[in-house]
């Protein structure tokens, strides 16, 4: 059976845990989405924009100098960083903004952590001529200042969120409050495979083009399937985008890399799948970081896009059934990963993506010699230049 089921459940995970005001809208959204999925003209339009506007297909690049450094692995990079706006997020925002148009919504809202989803949403809204407001934690506004300026230039209003941890979690709370209030004219573009059904399904669908392309490209180059897929996981959209097309390829192992922040033992991390409990946050049941009283904990990561105490429900499901494994990389190691890829390949990855790069050094030590790997290079690092100043020599 294909998941999620009709109620949006991936096994025990997923579902719709939202205020009643949103329930009718979610039902309507699901109908519109399912109709669009079957509608050739919608698919043609989306493909047109993905190819002509965003720059798909992205290349699957054999990272020879990185591989010389790693010695035992043959790594290919799926270059989502080459897309318009600099990250995979645009795959999803183009899809959702087309749905918003079908639903005749005039106003777009979004939450953002690293600002990549905010920029991708502001971009999609700008070229569709829709009004756009992006909720962003005030701590993130500071550490991702470049993206804030980009959003403003694109005509979006960036709304600072000063409640709670002032990061992605609180930005999402505020976005949901706005949505409940303006549900009749507003479309909420969620940036990850999180939130209430049908968002995890919808975002997966729009991002799964990463894996579909990569699988085809890899088969053409290697005449076989990869041994490993590696991607960073915050909410988990780039990872699910890469993983999903390989679900039935039993010999391809999937590894999601979470943010270990200052170290798993310190409690200051965002390793939801490794260290979290099952719980409900932002509309779905999944793994979350919580206190002994069931209050949501504040996550920590140097990468704003991973700094979230929840994760998409399908990842919780993949972990539960053993289809994917989840590991973690500290802030410090992520910075080393960022430096490694910059020096070996001349590619500056986003801090989020740098977690996946860093993990390759560990994988290289334990994987069989000559293992083939696809890494999702989910975004480029320009946005982080301000916040890593002084941290990299």
């Amino acid at each position, binding site marked *: 059976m294909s998941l999620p089921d009709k*109620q949006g459940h991936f096994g025990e995970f997923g*579902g*719709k*845990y*939202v*205020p*009643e*005001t*949103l*329930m*009718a*809208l979610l*039902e309507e959204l699901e109908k519109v989405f399912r109709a669009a999925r079957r509608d050739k003209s919608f698919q043609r339009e989306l493909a047109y924009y993905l190819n002509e506007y965003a720059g798909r297909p992205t290349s699957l690049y054999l990272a020879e100098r990185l591989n010389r450094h790693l010695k035992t692995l043959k790594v290919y990079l799926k270059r989502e960083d080459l897309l318009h706006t600099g990250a995979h997020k645009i795959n999803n925002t183009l899809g959702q903004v087309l749905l918003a148009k079908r639903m005749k919504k005039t106003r777009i809202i979004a939450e953002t952590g690293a600002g990549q989803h905010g920029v991708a949403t502001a971009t999609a809204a700008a070229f569709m001529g829709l009004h756009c407001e992006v909720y962003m934690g005030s701590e993130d506004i500071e550490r991702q200042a470049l993206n804030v300026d980009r959003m403003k230039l694109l005509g979006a209003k960036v709304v600072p969120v000063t*409640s*709670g941890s002032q990061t992605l*979690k*609180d930005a999402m*709370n505020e976005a*949901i*409050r706005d949505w*409940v*209030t*303006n*549900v*009749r004219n507003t479309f909420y573009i969620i940036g990850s495979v999180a939130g209430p059904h049908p968002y995890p399904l919808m975002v997966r669908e729009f991002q799964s083009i990463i894996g579909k392309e990569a699988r085809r490209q890899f088969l053409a180059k290697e005449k076989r399937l990869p041994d490993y897929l590696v991607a960073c996981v915050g909410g988990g959209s780039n990872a699910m985008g890469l993983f999903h097309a390989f679900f039935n390829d039993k010999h391809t192992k999937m590894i999601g890399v979470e943010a270990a922040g200052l170290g798993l033992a310190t409690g200051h991390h965002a390793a939801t799948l490794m260290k979290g*409990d099952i*719980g*409900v*946050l*932002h*509309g779905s*049941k999944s793994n*979350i970081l*919580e206190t002994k*009283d*069931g*209050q*949501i904990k504040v996550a920590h990561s140097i990468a704003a896009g991973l700094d979230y105490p929840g994760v998409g429900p399908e990842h919780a499901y993949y972990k539960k059934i053993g289809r994917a494994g989840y590991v973690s990389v500290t802030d410090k190691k992520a910075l080393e990963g960022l430096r490694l890829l910059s020096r070996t390949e001349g590619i500056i990855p986003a801090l989020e993506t740098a977690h996946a790069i860093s993990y390759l050094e560990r994988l290289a030590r334990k994987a069989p010699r000559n293992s083939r790997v696809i890494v999702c290079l989910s975004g480029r690092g320009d946005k982080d230049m301000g916040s890593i100043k002084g941290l990299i020599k």
Partner: protein
Amino acid sequence: MENKIDLKFKELEKKKKKAFIAFITAGDPNLSVTEKLVLAFEKAGVDIVELGVPFSDPLADGPTIQAASQRALKKHVNLESILAVVKRIRQRSQIPIALMTYYNPVFHYGEDRFTAKAKASGVDGLIIPDLPPEEGHNLIRAARQDGLATVFFLSPTTTSERMRRVAKSSTGFIYYVSLTGVTGARRQLPGTLRRQVELAKRFTRKPVCVGFGVSTPAQIRAVAAAADGVIVGSAIVNAIAKQKNSKNLVQHVSSFVQHLAGSLH
């Protein structure tokens, strides 16, 4: 034994009166004040108390109740300590009490363990704003076993098909959300509210109570014209916040509540 919320609505129906339901956040400014407030509310003419369990991420709440939750969480209030307060209240008062909580603390505590403990402590009903009936099978089953009412929500966006489903799952009363939005006092309520509540009442014979935004005697009277009860939250929580350092907090807040409740009786 019949549920105290059901008994209250029967009593009010006989008297041809509407219910005045007062919301406060447990532990704001501390649990001992919460206990005193509930006891004082009974004398002030409150029919049912809705006791809010503070949550770190209250996404259906506006700034007033968010701030109250933060104040309560700073005091390390949790389900255990709130249920202990209800138990203490029960030694002196039989006022119906519904707990309003987000779902995660309950899920984390364990639904069966929670409903059993809530019942034993003297809680009468549960209101969970991020748990629609579709996801509530386990909680509904556990609550039925322990004789707790499960209050679900209707809103201006609810379709007729959903109205039936929500009404069927609700016991005690049905919570009608007056507007599309979060909690918080409003100067004006939607002009269509009365018609919408009347429409909702066509789907059920259970009491329909209206909350969100209701904050003045005039609004309370207007809402009560169509509904079986009125829920006031943020206006009372605001009054508590203003008095939070005053020795006379309980006295001031309960006289404000008496003023609001008086507009119904």
